[in-house]
């Protein structure tokens, strides 16, 4: 009960701030929290990255091994994206197979990478119909500080940029860097009492009505979108978020030059 009272108070407080064009951590509505990306943190993985986005912390590891292609794409490599909301990361997460939130996060990350054609899957064919490179993207959420979506997308693409395909180990020629052709960046916004704020903190995420993630590419086009949450957007709000997301993704993409 007292927890519900607290949540009510917190909600009222955040609402009152929004009315005054303010956020609890002093950010502007279009401002992200600080981001720290580190790559090559797990030597045993073929690629890896950790992302800190404000209080959110997660790790992505890429494992690569040869395997059978899907029957309908015999000459293409395979991407398998998995995300776990391990109970370490939040009192709200439980052990067990991925629930709907983890599945949604993994699938939106996957679509962003896949639909931007970021990875040249045809370049990952070894023997057509028989042997291709399987790319396992595993994202481990360690600390849930809100907006896991953007952090997960950043970690996935950062880890992919770090990948060396271990061809030699399997006797399939020389090792080579995974060719990455685009850097899709996801930007998430939420609607709170009619206002739109970018990169919601965990408390903002909790009181938000609807959430929208827009993943955009180097050329400014959009490769994935996902609305979630029990709430509504007007078409105008969608277009506004898309604009902000494309702008913001350009700034974030510069992060990757630093790596």
């Amino acid at each position, binding site marked *: 009960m007292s927890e*519900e009272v607290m949540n009510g108070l917190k909600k009222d407080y955040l609402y009152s701030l929004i009315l005054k064009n303010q956020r609890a951590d002093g950010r502007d509505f279009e401002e992200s929290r600080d981001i720290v990306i580190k790559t090559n943190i797990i030597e045993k993985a073929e690629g890896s990255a950790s992302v800190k986005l404000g209080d959110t912390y997660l790790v992505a590891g890429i494992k690569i091994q040869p395997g059978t292609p899907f029957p309908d794409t015999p000459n293409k490599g395979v991407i398998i994206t998995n995300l776990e909301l391990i109970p370490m990361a939040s009192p709200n997460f439980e052990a067990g197979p*991925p*629930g*709907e*939130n983890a*599945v*949604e996060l*993994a*699938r939106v990350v996957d*679509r962003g990478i*896949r*639909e*931007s054609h970021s990875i040249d899957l045809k370049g990952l064919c070894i023997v057509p119909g028989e042997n291709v490179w399987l790319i396992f993207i595993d994202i481990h959420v360690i600390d849930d500080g809100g907006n896991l979506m953007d952090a997960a997308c950043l970690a996935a693409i950062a880890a992919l940029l770090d990948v060396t395909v271990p061809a030699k180990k399997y006797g399939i020629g020389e090792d080579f860097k995974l060719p990455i052709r685009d850097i899709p960046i996801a930007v998430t916004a939420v609607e709170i009492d009619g206002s739109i704020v970018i990169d919601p903190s965990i408390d903002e995420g909790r009181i938000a*009505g*609807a959430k*929208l993630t827009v993943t955009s*590419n180097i050329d*400014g*086009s*959009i*490769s*994935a*979108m*996902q*609305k*979630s*949450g*029990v*709430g*509504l*957007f*007007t*078409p105008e709000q*969608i*277009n506004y978020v*898309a*604009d902000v997301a*494309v702008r913001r993704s350009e700034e974030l993409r510069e992060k990757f030059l630093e790596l």
Partner: protein
Amino acid sequence: MDKPEKFIIDGIRLDGRKPDELRPMKIEVGVLNRADGSCYLEFGKNKVLAAVYGPREVHPRHNQKPTTAVVRFRYNMASFSVEERKRPGPDRRSIEVSKVSREAVEPMIFTEYFPKSAIDIFVEVLQADAGTRTAGINAASIALADASIPMRGLVSSCAVGKVDGELVLDLMKDEDNYGEADMPVAMTPDGEITLLQMDGNLTREELKKALEMATEGCKQIYKLQREALIGRYKKELEEHKEDVELVETITESEETSIESTTTVNIDESGGLDDE
């Protein structure tokens, strides 16, 4: 089918539709006995059933919410609904579709009227042909109304896609398989968006136009949904002759208002697509 060279020839799509045309849609309301509300819906080759139970008790109890109803949505594909037999049970795709579908209809339900209880929505896909999630949402929305669940309004859903570089409404299977973008949308009668997903490639200008096309598509579907519910209502009334006189007045005026805003009917209007 292999990829055709062109999807739109002289402004006409492979199945004869215009770019902004929906597939045919057929709606039957109240088709099930056990469920509190139900709907069978076909559009294009999609065949879906929606059923609603509730408000009812929540088991186990710690899943109850003290101040609102819990809305649950289970989207399921029958094993025989697709080309290759699908293993029974939920997969990652159906878990995601269930989640976004729930979030598409829940904003319209007065959940605060039913604290501690559950409203269960079940969508079964009997045949799939691109657009099953939008079909399911359209059917679920009607089933909710049929179950007399208090709602702010019906939700209507269709997809906009891109083929041959051109935006088209309501992708059918081949357009979906080889298309350049797919964007399922669900909307309130006021044009507010409760579902939005997209994969593929859209410029910001295309997104803007796509949202406008989706709005038009959802409007058409809304009218079909409303028509189907009124049809059901009239049929019920006819079964209670004593009430007919009073009712006819009501329904006629309703019908008039419909006819004044639409010329769509079941045979010549369209369907939905969402993947």
